[in-house]
């Protein structure tokens, strides 16, 4: 026993000496990034959560990729051509693209990936993103074989895809992991499969860390500055902040609620708050009393909420007050102007009261309503504030109900209990359609049960309209939606990070995607 220890100590001493004598740092410092929750899966077809997608974008690459500013750039495809009608895409793949085990990466790997993603038996969770591809609907429903999908390889490095209808955001989908290529070697566990991205997964201890190592076979490896990246899953934002302050993290996933002002004061050079393509709103159930067939009442409820106070005082994490559904500036889209935005508080509340009384409610006969949200401290703050504003402005009696996430999601989708409920959306792709189609009459996510044929028609027209016309039609649709008020937009999301000033190449962008291959870590 004592011999063993002596031996160990000797070993440790040697290492210590080596470290002291070694010329310069033998191993580069890894970039340590907070990840939020543990990724749900690192299988490109099973991953759903943002954490998993973030890691997969570092370890894999699709036809297209995103640059440091979050804009589209060539990935495995070095160039592409779209036909004039927008229905046919031709990609030319890089000849030097290869898998981490040295196998060449060809068009067949993409075909294999897409076919498997859509085949019902592979249970891919985000497969519906591929629905714009011709034949995808039939495959996902199990009515046709995967081979009928309109994707083909005219050559080993050429890929041809046909679409069902013009889809302006299709190229962006090609940066989503569900569209990534799939190596033929499938039997091994996910962690052992070859990858084609800038980094390799070296070690993964669930809920402790994911250690990524630069992939020497990545086609642009000479442009990748970091040797190692360590993703650290930390669920609690307070813990993440402590770790950042202690110097154990270079980039955090978020900031704790209510700490924005303090951080802006004390960590001004690290705090990064930027618009994000997500909206937060209150949904109103139009299929049940008391809100069915009462657009005036719904509008009164909307007008009674002071978004400025809500975002600045109650939420306090840099959120932007919103009067419209679609965040401003998505793909060149201009949100409709809401007159209330320019009104004084008094005008706004006066109008709210008038509409409220016109709907048949008063001090003596107040509206009683339920506001439902999923259990979370942040949502509770929001709900309490909204209920207080309604009470103060109109005398509405609000009952706050919070439910566990799974229960809440079910109730919201069924719509047999809900009246007012927490809603929100983070766009899958930077296009207003991602938000607007949630309120199409037949959309599964339309939990307001908004049914308006004119609205559906406008979306339909926009889908086939020429590029110049499209955004104008979408704007009309949103105008209609806001007039009918099946939702009360409250604010648009922001991305929030603390980024060590030593990190270079971290550029704020509305997609909030920051691939590690574009980042560098300066000397301390």
């Amino acid at each position, binding site marked *: 026993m004592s011999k063993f220890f002596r031996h160990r100590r000797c070993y440790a001493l040697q290492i210590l000496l080596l470290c002291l004598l070694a010329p310069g740092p033998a191993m580069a410092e890894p970039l340590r990034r907070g990840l939020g929750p543990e990724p749900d899966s690192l299988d490109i077809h099973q991953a759903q959560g943002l954490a998993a997608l973030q890691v997969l974008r570092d370890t894999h690459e699709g036809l297209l990729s995103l640059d440091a500013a979050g804009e589209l750039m060539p990935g495995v495809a070095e160039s592409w051509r779209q036909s004039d009608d927008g229905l046919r895409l031709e990609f030319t793949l890089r000849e030097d693209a290869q898998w981490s085990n040295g196998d060449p990466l060809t068009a067949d790997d993409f075909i294999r990936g897409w076919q498997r993603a859509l085949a019902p*038996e592979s249970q891919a969770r985000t*497969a519906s993103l591929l629905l714009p591809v011709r034949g995808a609907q039939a495959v996902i*429903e199990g009515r046709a074989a995967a081979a009928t999908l309109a994707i083909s390889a005219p050559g080993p490095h050429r890929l041809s895809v046909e679409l069902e209808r013009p889809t302006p955001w299709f190229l962006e989908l090609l940066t989503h992991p569900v569209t990534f290529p799939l190596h033929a070697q499938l039997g091994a566990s996910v962690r052992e499969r070859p990858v084609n991205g800038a980094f390799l997964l070296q070690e993964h201890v669930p809920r402790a860390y994911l250690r990524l190592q630069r992939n020497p076979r990545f086609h642009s490896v000479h442009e990748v500055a970091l040797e190692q990246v360590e993703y650290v899953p930390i669920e609690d934002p307070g813990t993440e902040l402590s770790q950042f302050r202690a110097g154990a993290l270079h980039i955090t996933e978020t900031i704790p609620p209510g700490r924005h002002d303090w951080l802006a004061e004390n960590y001004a050079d690290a705090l990064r708050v930027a618009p994000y393509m997500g909206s937060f709103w209150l949904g109103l159930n139009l299929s049940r009393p008391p809100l069915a067939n009462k657009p005036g009442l719904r509008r009164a409820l909307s007008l009674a909420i002071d978004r400025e106070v809500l975002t600045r005082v109650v939420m306090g994490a840099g959120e932007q007050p919103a009067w419209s559904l679609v965040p401003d500036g998505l793909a060149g889209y201009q949100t409709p102007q809401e007159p209330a935005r320019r009104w004084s508080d008094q005008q706004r509340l006066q109008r709210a009261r008038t509409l409220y009384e016109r709907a048949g409610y008063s001090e003596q006969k107040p509206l009683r309503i339920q506001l439902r949200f999923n259990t979370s401290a942040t949502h509770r703050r929001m709900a309490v504030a909204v209920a207080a504003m309604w009470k103060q402005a109109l005398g509405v009696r609000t009952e706050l109900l919070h439910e566990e996430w*799974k229960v809440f999601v*079910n109730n919201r989708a069924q719509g047999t209990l809900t009246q007012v409920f927490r809603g929100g959306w983070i766009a899958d792709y930077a296009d207003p359609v991602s938000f607007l189609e949630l309120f199409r009459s037949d959309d599964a996510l339309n939990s307001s049960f908004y049914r308006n044929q004119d609205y559906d028609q406008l979306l339909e027209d926009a889908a086939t309209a020429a590029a110049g016309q499209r955004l104008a039609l979408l704007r009309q649709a949103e105008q209609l939606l806001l007039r009918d008020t099946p939702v009360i937009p409250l604010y648009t999301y922001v991305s929030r990070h603390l980024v060590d000033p030593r990190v270079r190449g971290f550029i704020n962008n509305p997609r909030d995607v920051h691939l590690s291959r574009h980042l560098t870590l300066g000397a301390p």
Partner: protein
Amino acid sequence: MRQQSLLRHAGQRLLGVLPTLLLLITVVFFLMRIAPGGPFDSEKALPPDIQANLEAKYHLDEPLLQQYFRYLGQILVLDFGPSFQYKDWTVNELIAQGFPVSLTIGGFAMLLGFLVGVTVGVLSALRQNTAADYATMGFAMLGVSIPNFVVAPVLILLFAVYAGWLPAGGWDGGWRSAVLPVITLALPVIAYIARLMRGSMIEMLHSNFIRTARAKGLPEWHVILRHALKPALLPVISYMGPATAALITGSVVIERIFAIPGLGSYFVQGALNRDYTLVMGVVIFYGFLIIMLNFIVDMLYSILNPKIRYEER
């Protein structure tokens, strides 16, 4: 003769483990299924064919009773199945990764709690009703009543953020990342054990056999260590059984605040995500541990306390 009946008793108790576990499995299995919502419910509903295939993969399309018996069959070969939430891992893998972490932290916290708690309790009892006694017991009261989600961030702030001596959280397997969580976990244990120990020690010191020992002229340290300590430990021992089981299976709060990949979070995460297999796995594991530790406590009891005998009926 005594040893033989002890063994017999041990055997009987061990046999009783099986029906207890079976009851536990049954109750948890059906409770989980009664909870509204399922593992695949999310904001975005899955296409029906994909949903159906997922359910078939996890056998959720079978009648409940069939699922139950299938699960029992799996447990017999110690296979807890794949996790619904962490899709790349099996529940066995997750427990195998998480338990050593929880065991390390919980084990050291228990050890620290026991050593410090017993010492403080004994010293307090010997100086009963002095200033030192009131001070330590006041401190112990504080230890019991201040929740660990208050203690932990304060420790982090002091030792990690300001002083920079220890990591602010996370787990790399080294001792440095274990220090703060162990202390945070141990504080209430120290406090609780100290109070228990003080009470039972005072009681012992006033009992007749101690008076006899003193009357025989034995040195005071001898009286305390050889005669009073052993029986005075009994309430502490019986507290330690379930407490150890709770500590070494991880604490949700500690794991969250220190970002530690232990077992504790799986209880909560698993239940919220309707991760049926994960919840079942950790509950059975926890149940087994608590039964075994209680068993050990019982055995220790009969060794420490000559009054407890397991005679044949």
